[in-house]
């Protein structure tokens, strides 16, 4: 359950930012969690509920932006990659450059 560590890092950063900006709570938070970032959404929801209690994130609306994309090293085509072991759908090349999907980011927050 590394999802719990992830939520706890988010809570820690949120607490710091609220303090730094002399705010009271976080009204909303936007996260970018790529499809290949190794995060299970159910586990994340579960961890979120448990970890935000009595913190500045308790009532925050969370929005999660997902996505993934890869580029084939051989034929240069871009496509949506679902698994790390996917091959190029055009030429079958296994060597791919992952251009999106590994992100694990706090994009923005609205403080109140």
């Amino acid at each position, binding site marked *: 359950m*590394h999802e719990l560590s992830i939520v706890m*890092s988010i809570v*820690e950063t949120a607490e710091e930012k609220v303090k730094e900006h002399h705010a009271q709570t976080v009204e909303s938070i936007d996260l970018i969690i790529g499809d290949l970032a*190794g995060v299970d959404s159910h586990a994340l929801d579960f961890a979120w509920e448990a970890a935000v209690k009595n913190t500045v994130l308790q009532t925050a609306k969370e929005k999660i932006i997902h996505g993934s994309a890869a580029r084939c090293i051989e034929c240069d085509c871009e496509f949506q990659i679902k698994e790390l072991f996917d091959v190029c759908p055009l030429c079958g090349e296994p060597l791919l450059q992952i251009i999106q999907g590994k992100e694990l*980011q706090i994009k923005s927050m*609205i403080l109140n």
Partner: protein
Amino acid sequence: MCATCGCDSDAKVSIHRVEKPQPLNIDTLLLTPIEPAPTPLPNGRKQIDLEQDILLKNNLLAERNRGYFLAKNILAINLVSSPGSGKTALLERTLNDLIGKESIYVIEGDQQTSNDADRIASSGAPVVQINTGKGCHLDSQMISEAVNQLNIQNESILFIENIGNLVCPAMFDLGEQKRVVVISVTEGEDKPLKYPDMFQSSQLCIINKIDLLPYLKFDLEALKSYGRKVNPSIEFMELSCTTGEGVTQWYTWLENQKHRNLQFA
């Protein structure tokens, strides 16, 4: 021209007072990535565009650990596997075979017990136990604290036995130079496809318990091809910690990593 050092003494001389250097506060450095000014919103609310990695603190501290290891020329290896694949057995055999030849330190991660650390300590190697309780992975903060306690000599090897789990430890950089994933032939050949993150982030895969191969239907080549699907550059090594078959290639690999480490220093 100055006779002593050959510098150009005709150039304009500049004399300036040198201020006492301000001590760097590493904690503020770690906590304050560059961040644009907040956007004011109605009713005194404000939006802050952080674009900050969620694991920023772990990653920064991991880089700090890595710098420490490089500076002291310590080869740090992060050993990961499912529970029971043989991480501790590999360490016991390695310590037994290399004692007196290499200076070796061990950090043992375990949720509850100190069983593995006790097994290592009986070999005489300095070992620190990290009990994570419910935590299913080690992180760079734990390693930093354990390293402080170990007081590692320069030119040593540090083995970190992570928690037996192929999911969570994949996400947490500890500052190691190499990640080694151990799989035993009693597990499924398709582990690399089920746990692609771990196999993608490892540089070496040790296939352990090959003494059991005659009794099992385990397809070594299938395992390797699945592993290469996820990570085309991963290396494989087959051995048995019980019989010692194949372990010399592991010692050769370690020796090569030490030299590679020196080149980077």
